[in-house]
């Protein structure tokens, strides 16, 4: 550490790296023309939420306040300080999840005792259990804070939300429709206006979706009441009250802003992950496996990655990025 500080070029390099890393965030806020605060309204005078939106938080990693941790961990030298394990070890700092403040009121989820144990078990088996990894439909509310944009097309009687992740979508019925006769990953949503707030009741869920990558879960008794309230032109206050008598001791609530994507070229693109996850899900059933080792249904992950030999010069080591200065 002291050596590091004593080396002026390292300090400069670090400063430059930090500047580069944070540059997008700085320019994004300063580069956009300030928007007016007037909330767009529909023909019938209600807030028009049409547009492309995205949460900007770490709730999809963990809806509760969390420190950084390896995505997949193994014991380190100290029992309380795990290090990344094989599937993500090669990713370096990317193998660590971003820390973040929670989105749950009181920062506590009132699990029944059995459910608290199940949540812990889910987290320990994240790679095997998280429906997101299999490209299953994310459910509600998780779809709303995935690290992907979604687009709202707000019609007079239907509000359609289309999510970039998995090409998922939901239709919120503002008009009266027959009760949904089945369960659905994305649930069945009916909405109504309370002043300027769109209130959405969603039910008919499956018990196959999660709230985040930390194993927080629910049963098919889940009922979600969401409230979409404009904060200004470019932000929606999103609140979701979660009720599930089979899993929780009482209803609980999460809330967060959803931000309008102000990028001039904002648009949804395709993230159709069914095909992307085929090797992960079905690779063990290939005649000739692509992965080096499947033992039954278990992937034994082997990785090949090279560190520079200790003998390389300081300059060579610094230029490992592949961006050496021009000679």
């Amino acid at each position, binding site marked *: 550490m002291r050596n590091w500080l004593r080396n002026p070029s390292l300090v400069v390099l670090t400063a430059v790296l930090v500047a580069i890393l944070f540059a997008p965030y700085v320019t994004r806020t300063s580069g956009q023309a300030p928007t007016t605060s007037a909330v767009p*309204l529909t023909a019938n005078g209600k807030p*028009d939420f049409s547009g492309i939106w995205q949460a900007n938080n770490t709730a999809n990693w963990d809806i509760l306040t969390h420190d950084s941790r390896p995505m997949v961990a193994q014991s380190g030298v100290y029992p309380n300080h795990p290090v990344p394990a094989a599937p993500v070890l090669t990713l370096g700092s990317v193998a660590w999840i971003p820390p973040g403040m929670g989105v749950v009121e009181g920062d506590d989820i009132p699990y029944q005792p059995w459910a608290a144990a199940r949540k812990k078990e889910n987290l320990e088996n994240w790679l095997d259990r998280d429906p997101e990894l299999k490209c299953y439909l994310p459910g509600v509310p998780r779809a709303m804070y995935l690290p992907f944009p979604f687009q709202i*097309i707000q019609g007079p*009687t239907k509000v359609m939300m*289309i999510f970039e992740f998995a090409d998922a979508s939901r239709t919120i019925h503002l008009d009266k429709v027959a009760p949904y006769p089945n369960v659905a990953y994305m649930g069945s949503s009916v909405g109504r206006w309370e002043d300027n707030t769109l209130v959405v009741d969603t039910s008919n869920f499956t018990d196959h979706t999660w709230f985040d990558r930390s194993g927080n879960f629910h049963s098919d008794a889940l009922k979600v009441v969401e409230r979409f309230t404009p904060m200004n032109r470019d932000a929606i206050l999103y609140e979701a009250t979660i009720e599930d008598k089979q899993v929780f001791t009482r209803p609980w609530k999460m809330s967060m802003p959803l931000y309008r994507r102000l990028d001039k070229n904002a648009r*949804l693109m395709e993230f*159709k992950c069914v095909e992307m996850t085929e090797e992960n899900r079905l690779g063990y059933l*290939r005649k000739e496996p692509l992965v080096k080792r499947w033992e039954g249904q278990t992937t034994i992950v082997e990785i090949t990655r090279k560190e520079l030999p200790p003998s390389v010069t300081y300059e060579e080591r610094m230029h490992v990025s592949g961006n050496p200065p021009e000679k």
Partner: protein
Amino acid sequence: MKNRFLAVMGALALVAGVSVVALLGAGQAKAGAAIRTPWGEPDLQGIWYAYENAPLERPAQYAGREFLTDAEMKAKYGKRWIERVAEGFNDPSTRQGRDRREKAGTDEDVAGAYNALWTPGRDHIKPTRRTSLIVDPPDGRIPPMTPEGKKRADAFKDFQEALLQGTPMGKPGPLFSRRTEAPPNYNLGRLHRPPQGPEDRGRTERCLPLMMPSFGGRDYQRIVQSPGYVAIYYEASGHAGANRIIPVGEARQVPLPPHVRQWDGDARGRWDGSTLVVETTNFTDKTDYQGSHENLQLTERFTRVDADTIRYEVTVQDPTTWTRPWTVRADMGKQNEYENGLYEPSCHEGDYGLIGILSGARAADKAFKQGRGPDPWKVKVLYDEVPGAAGE
């Protein structure tokens, strides 16, 4: 702020008033063009299904004729259908209730147990007199392929045929030497071999995305609009239905650069009078529509001809595949909004079929290896085409 709000509301009231006058003026005709959204764009919203029960291409026996005769109609649809024509298919009572079952325990009931939920039931199919959905070229047939297109299509066909060589389904001879290799282009149907992996099976079995264009008795769609955007949800396709977002007007469009390719392509819309015109390009080389891949270009036209009908037309072109563009017309009927008969297919989440197919293939491999079963390459298999797969 308040004044501006009042001004906006005043303008809207004026627009609404004008609309009412326009509707009154139209009288009983209720032309589709007069049906507008509250913000004044043509209104295509609702649940729609393609109901015209005509083949894509005109069968040889109807050559030179666009329509069936009365006798042919009767032969094709039976007495019941003729009666239904007389009843009038615009009667709302004949359109709703897609879940209506045949009498429990009958063959019709059992046969329809699964698929009837996802495809327009017999009661919804319009007994059209048209002999083909293709309206241009006038012969109702897909135009001839270019030499390049034919070469590409033949390469795939030849590969499929070669896979059968030496098996009970093909020509005699040794098994094809390249039988475990990847086919000449991305496979979306069923390869004629024991599945080596998921890629050997059909698009619908893998729950892969919608194959554009989608029309003609395959699908229910929901259209929702906001100012400048038209969103279409196709129920029975892809992972869990498929979504298209069509920005209408250049100001809202962010075209993809040529190197970005998508299953659904890149759709850009405009209003031509009261018709929504959608141009779609940027398809992937995995796309396979009638032998066209990444160079597929679609021009779709959605016109609300009356309250209950959208006329859907699509011009398909690909100069690397066909000698000329061709056009399909397939009208869509409106579905009951209250019944809201659209469901989440979650095809992928429930896809244990594919796991079963592949694990069956691996079990057969193992049995053969252990001398307990036949050589999987020597077993007779019926490689029927997958509904909705490439080339349909």
